[in-house]
């Protein structure tokens, strides 16, 4: 890395932080037995099912596993597109 690069580029995060993020990820996967590939599959299938009934904003769907203590939950965030000209409710 040149001097200017070093001056202007953002510093790499410290390896302890990287370790924590990586540990969090492997624990999440180990505990629930959910691999990143399975999460992708779940996301695709959830989109398919929900789209049959509602207009899903496909690009913004997020499916993830969150931890609370040693408990895992599957969390799906599925933004919906409002129908043009029609007010909800």
């Amino acid at each position, binding site marked *: 890395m040149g001097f200017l690069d070093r001056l202007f580029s953002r510093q790499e995060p410290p390896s*302890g932080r990287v370790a924590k993020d990586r*540990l969090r990820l492997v624990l999440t996967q*180990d505990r629930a037995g959910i691999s990143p590939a399975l999460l992708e599959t779940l996301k695709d299938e959830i989109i398919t099912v929900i789209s049959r009934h509602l207009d899903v904003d496909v690009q913004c769907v997020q499916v993830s596993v969150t931890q609370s203590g040693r408990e895992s939950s599957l969390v799906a965030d599925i933004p919906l597109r409002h129908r043009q000209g029609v007010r909800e409710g």
Partner: protein
Amino acid sequence: MAGRVVTITSGKGGVGKTTLTANLGAALAMRGQRVVVIDADVGLRNLDVMLGLENRIVYDLVDVIEGRCRLRQGLVRHKQLPELYLLPAAQTRDKSAVQPEDMVRICDELRGDHDVVLIDSPAGIEQGFRYAMEPADEIIIVTNPEVSAARDADRVIGLIEAEEKGPARLVINRLEPSMVSKGHMLGVADVVELLAIDLIGVVPEDSNALIAANRGQPLALSNNRSRAGHAFHNIAGRLLGEEVDFQPLRQPRVFERLLRFVSPERS
């Protein structure tokens, strides 16, 4: 009151189970507890060497199980601590020579005459882990502040939860405070947060551990106590229900080092 059985395990190998068992055994015996440490690592006997007792062994765990001697005859008394006994592992057998029920039977017999039975579990989550876990009233899980060791510890915590054993508490061994403060090592809070388990102690990286192992003299026994030796005594205290503060572990400043140099008993 009947003695309690505490199993020391880890998942990953080489994180410090045997070191902890030897030092905790010594520290507890120094507090007047009647202690037996069992080397459950059949085929890879080590606890005898850590305690400096390798030349005194006549019988071993498998001899007791297979009835070649009485349990009492299998126990090796520590040279300096008359209330500390070792039940050594067999060296020429493998782990299939021990069944979980054998460990339960032996521990039940030991509970009568002893306050604490510490079991040094083999690494892994197979047979050796199973039989070491079976008689446990309490469990101590040892890990290092690294992704791989903490991940394996988590597997073990999961197994213990699934079998409704425990309570299990965590020892973080080989922490380097200077590395943590520079951001290059997982800190205590990080590991405890992610593993979501109670902490019973933090042992710093300490080159005295190697010297102690060379001499067969646990650090906890030493008069001018090292940082790790201190940590082992704190864990012994907590195991006995004492409230021992978790001091922030950091590198002593130059000034403090000088102070220690001038008056060594402060360290």
